[in-house]
């Protein structure tokens, strides 16, 4: 049947670790210290921890949704929407969710270009860069999900040195910055949690590629481990940021992580930040690749007549166009705020609601049967 996926296109259970984890580590971790500590200062790490643990719960909801759906057809969000809400409303909902995926890739690409322009190449043309970049994305996505998951694995490996670079913070640490613990109201910590969502978003994309994972029962625990790894990475980076910067300085610094890299000095090269920013391209490639793949797949699911390789070109053209429409840093910030709010609603309100709808549908189905 149409539902069966060719085993040569499936990816191993370990991909459930790498894919969501790599999607979560985005451009956000370069700047999130400033945004989070705005409201909760030295207790910001608590917000990352709480927000991270809540994403574990959301991950559980997602896996529950998908596993329930397995009895009815292919376990992905497209089929869930179509089965529960019917083809029309279902497709509209699918498109709303997919617009968030587009926003995801767009916000990341544009934020990265902004960083390149500010830190290394002020003269960089965002149009030129996005065209070259989209050529790479096109090449990888045409290789299918297996290639994309390979790129995710590489991205995970390439980023390890960047995180290890944080060790150089330790001699400059001011541990008294962390004290006193728990000195902020729950409300201010909750506001920080809301801002953290931006960085944790990305794991929910498992909704789209779950059917491609072979041996899903093994994949489940890897999915949780992936989220736990992200929590660990973010919490450590935030803690290090807090002990390295004074609060006043932090609020003055737009990209605390890169500013920190800038102060690492080796005898032969002064600017570790430039090398690190270029390596960060490897954060971006898997992100945009998977997003484009998801969008192309969504279009194919809704309009089976359109082939993925055609829709992919359309998607990349749209991506390049909207990327070039954004002119300055203020707009980039606005886009990231929209992305954050939208994602917050999806993972904390929409997905639990969907699980509830699925349960209702099951009840109704059973009664009528």
């Amino acid at each position, binding site marked *: 049947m149409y539902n069966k996926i060719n085993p040569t296109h499936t990816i191993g259970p370990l991909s459930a670790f790498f894919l969501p984890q790599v999607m979560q580590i985005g451009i956000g971790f370069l700047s999130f210290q400033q945004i989070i500590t705005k409201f909760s200062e030295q207790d910001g790490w608590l917000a990352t921890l709480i927000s991270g643990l809540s994403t574990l719960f959301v991950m559980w909801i997602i896996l529950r949704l998908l596993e329930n759906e397995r009895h009815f057809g292919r376990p992905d969000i497209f089929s869930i929407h179509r089965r529960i809400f019917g083809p029309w409303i279902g497709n509209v909902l699918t498109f709303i969710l997919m617009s968030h995926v587009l926003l995801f890739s767009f916000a990341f690409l544009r934020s990265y270009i902004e960083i390149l322009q*500010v*830190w*290394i*190449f002020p*003269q*960089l*043309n965002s149009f*030129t860069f996005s*065209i*070259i970049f989209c*050529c790479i994305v096109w090449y990888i996505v045409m290789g299918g999900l297996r290639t994309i998951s390979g790129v995710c694995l590489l991205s995970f490996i390439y980023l390890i040195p960047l995180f290890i670079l944080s060790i150089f913070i330790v001699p*400059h640490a*001011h541990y*008294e*910055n*962390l*004290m*006193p613990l728990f*000195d902020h109201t729950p409300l201010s910590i909750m506001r920080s949690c809301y801002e953290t969502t931006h960085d944790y978003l990305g794991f929910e994309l498992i909704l789209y590629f779950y059917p491609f994972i072979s041996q899903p029962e093994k994949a489940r625990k890897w999915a949780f481990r992936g989220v736990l790894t992200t929590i660990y990475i973010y919490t450590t980076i935030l803690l290090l940021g807090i002990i390295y*910067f*004074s*609060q*006043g*300085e932090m*609020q*003055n610094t737009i990209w605390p992580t890169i*500013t920190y890299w*800038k*102060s*690492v*000095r080796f005898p032969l090269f*002064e*600017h570790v*930040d430039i090398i690190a920013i270029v390596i960060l391209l490897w954060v971006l490639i898997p992100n945009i690749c998977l997003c484009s793949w998801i969008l192309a797949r969504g279009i194919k699911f809704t309009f089976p007549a359109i082939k993925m390789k055609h829709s992919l070109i359309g998607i990349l053209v749209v991506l390049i166009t909207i990327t070039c429409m954004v002119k300055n840093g203020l707009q980039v910030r606005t886009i990231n705020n929209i992305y954050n709010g939208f994602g917050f609603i999806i993972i904390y309100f929409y997905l639990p609601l969907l699980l509830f709808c699925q349960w209702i549908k099951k009840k109704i189905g059973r009664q009528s049967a």
Partner: protein
Amino acid sequence: MKHFMHLIASITVLIILSGCLPTSVIDDVLIIEAEGVDYIGGNKVIGTVTMPNYVQSSNPGSSGAGLPTTASMIRYLSGTTYDGKSLVDRFQENGQRALRAGKLRVMLFNKGLAKHGLRKQIDLRNRDPEAPREMNLAIVDGSCKKLLTAIDYQTQIPIARYIQDMIEQNNKQNYPESTLESFLYAYYGDYMDPFLPVIRKSGDHLETIGLALFKSDKYVMELPSNKVFIFKMLFQKFDQGVYDFEFASQKHIALKNVHTKVSYKVKNGNSTSPDIYAHVSINAQIIQAYPKSINKTMGPKIEKKIEKHMAAQAEKLVHMLQKKQIDPLQLGQHVRSHTRHFDGKSWYDRYPNAHFHCTVDTTIIQTGISD
């Protein structure tokens, strides 16, 4: 054939699209290593930048292979501009080649500018993605321009490296660590004030003569060199300083610090006069003493004397800082970290009234190879 066309197309696209960004080839730029800013009043400054000059170096390799390409490069540029102007931009039109600040080592300000305020200079450096954060800042007693452009130094290495080497080795010993990074930390942070070393040209060499203490960005006072050990002891842990203790008139003992640690405790942080307790423990060795003034049995007696003396010095130092209303020791930060719901707004009014108590615990671990 189709693949071949794809290849051709992608290579063409890459060639057309890439290579359109300006480059900075290291042989084709002037690398600025030091900047000096002298204040001359009316918001005007004299700016000086220096670049490494390889002609001066007597590198034996270079004579055999002819002079390096940078041989004809200019050595420094100087001119007036307004306070806060980027010197790279200011001197671009005088530069033999494009100027770049990516390897800036030191930035010097004269005392006049420090009194006027470093606000604009610091903002400039904090905004610039190019300048490294590990560079050293220093206050010059005298003229930065004279210091940077003098040619009568004993050393042949470029002046920027000379200054940086001197500041850095001092930072490891008696002087507290001061880089752009630590200056920005204290300048932008709440409840603390920055400090910088003061250097001076003395004949054919440079010397570090003290520590300039700031109130926010404005110079307030200078801490003389002999008090810097006490300052550093209260500021951070370190292991290489030397402290000269005059235990009786004309009789000195020099302690070589092997390991110093400081810990703070605070009581009544939100009251009108908070109590700050500093406990310093010093492990030291005696490297120089007045003849017959110390041996193994007399150790504990001398230790007591030193402890008492140092604690008194420390309290005197903090008292002076309180009177000037400056906080380079970051005591406010310690109070904040020990106080729940710290009342930051009234801190500056309460700081001068805070009680500072210092206890010092000295252990002389050895007294040299003779008794």
